[in-house]
């Protein structure tokens, strides 16, 4: 696009970014607030962080959520990579229409519908075949992995679709069999997409309140469920501290990932340059 002065759209961009970030900045600011009244400034303090880290219930819920998110993300990457490969590489296989539908629907379907339908299915399966017996961590993982797999599929699909196939062709010419080509050439090339997909699934799972609330059972309270119930009872300054920690971790993660990608890109350009020169 044409590049010009700042103009109306530039001003709107600045206002829009302020709109996106002012609440987050205020949240971080008030997490260091001495006062119990969340929005009245009472001086700097770390008391809410101390309260957060001595809250056993919160820590247990956080640990449960992290475990669920890690397992979910791993399953979702395996399923999503298989689905992405099938959609990009296998042409018009039988049942493709239904398959693409099942990939696209979880991306837009309201969470309340996904949660309710999954719960009813778990109950019906429990009645019919006795598995999964009861509900809890396992049912949350299955439910999360299902909708996260759809997101991973989209990420893998777009990476595979944009892939330059000349390296695969070269490997084939040198006598590698198709599966070997995939594992030795293709998979390492799309690895960044797999990592991005894993992180996306991890975040989606860690953040989910609605689906987990439907499919959970006694004893499995995830972090969003605990946060939601404490926020409903009133504003609690500990949640400010928790939110600030999440924002800090995510920002560090994204900055690191961007820096790494830049580095990889620079190294790749240098290698290409050397290869041409040599």
């Amino acid at each position, binding site marked *: *696009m*044409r590049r*010009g002065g700042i103009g109306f*759209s530039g001003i*709107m*961009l600045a206002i*829009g*970014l302020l*709109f*996106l*970030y002012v*609440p*987050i900045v205020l*949240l971080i600011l*008030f997490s260091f607030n001495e006062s119990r009244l969340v*929005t009245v400034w009472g001086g700097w303090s770390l008391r809410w962080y101390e309260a957060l880290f001595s809250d056993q219930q919160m820590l247990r819920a956080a640990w449960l959520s992290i475990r669920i998110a890690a397992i979910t993300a791993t399953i979702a990457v395996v*399923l999503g990579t*298989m689905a992405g*490969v*099938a959609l990009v590489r*296998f042409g018009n*296989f039988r049942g493709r229409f*239904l*398959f693409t539908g*099942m*990939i696209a629907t979880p991306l*837009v*379907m*309201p*969470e*309340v*519908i996904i949660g*309710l*339908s999954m719960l*009813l*299915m778990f*109950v*019906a399966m429990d009645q019919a075949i006795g598995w999964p017996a009861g509900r809890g961590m396992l049912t949350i993982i*299955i439910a999360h992995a*299902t909708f996260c*797999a759809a997101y991973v599929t989209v990420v893998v699909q777009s990476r595979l679709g944009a892939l330059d196939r*000349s390296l695969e*062709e*070269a*490997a*084939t010419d040198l006598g590698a069999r*198709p*599966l070997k080509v*995939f594992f030795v050439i293709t998979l390492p090339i799309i690895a960044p997409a797999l990592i991005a997909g894993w992180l996306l699934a991890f975040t989606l799972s860690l*953040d989910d*309140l609605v689906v987990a609330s*439907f499919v959970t059972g006694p004893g499995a309270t995830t972090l969003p469920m605990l*946060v*939601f119930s404490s926020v*409903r009872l009133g*504003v609690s300054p500990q*949640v400010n501290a928790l*939110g600030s920690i*999440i924002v800090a971790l995510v920002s560090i993660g994204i900055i690191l990932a*961007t820096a790494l990608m830049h580095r990889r890109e620079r190294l790749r350009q240098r290698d290409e340059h050397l290869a041409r020169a040599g």
Partner: protein
Amino acid sequence: MAESSTHPNGIVRHRPARWPRRARMLVVSVPYLWLLVFFAVPFLIVLKISLSEPQFAQPPYAPLIEWGDDLALDIRLNLANYALLAEDRLYLVAYLNSIKIAFFSTLICLAIGYPMAYAIARANPAWRTGLLMLIILPFWTSFLIRVYAWIGILRDNGVINNLLISFGIIDQPLQMLQTDFAVYLGITYSYLPFMILPLFATLQRLDDSLLEAAADLGCPPWRTFLTVTLPLSVPGIVAGSLLVFIPAVGEFVIPALLGGPDTVMIGRVLWDEFFTNRDWPVASAVALVMALLLVLPIMLIQWLYSREQAREA
């Protein structure tokens, strides 16, 4: 070597051969079966339970198909749950209200998001990555906590009211939390990135030479925008609007935390029907009608779009 291709420089390169049949079967069938069992079949179960009678038991619905006393198959279809949806005005009001709130939130997102996406697409490439990162970053932080942050801002003794009172603009705090206004604000805030990203993707692909041609022919910038840029960005507008509108219709967290008791949205009704009233059959009927309400417009848009493409071709 199933396929081969001739490169521009005349070298014949071979596409990797097709995967062995068994490997292909495995790669397709694992995710296929998973999605079938855990995503498609559950909708059939929702349909089944929406047709059954509620009962005080665990689980709280009566079986639909039973072997009767005389070993005859006894199928009881119960449309009472759907009749309830049609009769009780609560549900109709909730559906209409959800669609209204989602529709206007989508328009607000479009009005704010379009110029933002336009500015990013026009920005210096060195800045573009950073700006995009700033748009995406909130999406990676907790949705629940970003909604929660607004409670502290909008409350009676929240940031805005404190500021307005300390400047002497108002004496009494304005009620902002627990209003429809707060829900619009929350939805716009949460879904704005989903509007900006597809818009940016289409605006970035826009061919510069079209705009230059329009300028060379003496077309004023606003007219170039209306006759060239805007029509060419329709796919982005449609994609972004769907990404905001559909989840917003079924939104639960935002109306539950920011809305008032009279902000009835269908996602919240479904939640209460399930968790508070423990009426699984009615909750299922609510879910099915909502899914149909959302699927039909998408299919209509896809049909219009494919007809448009067919006409162009």
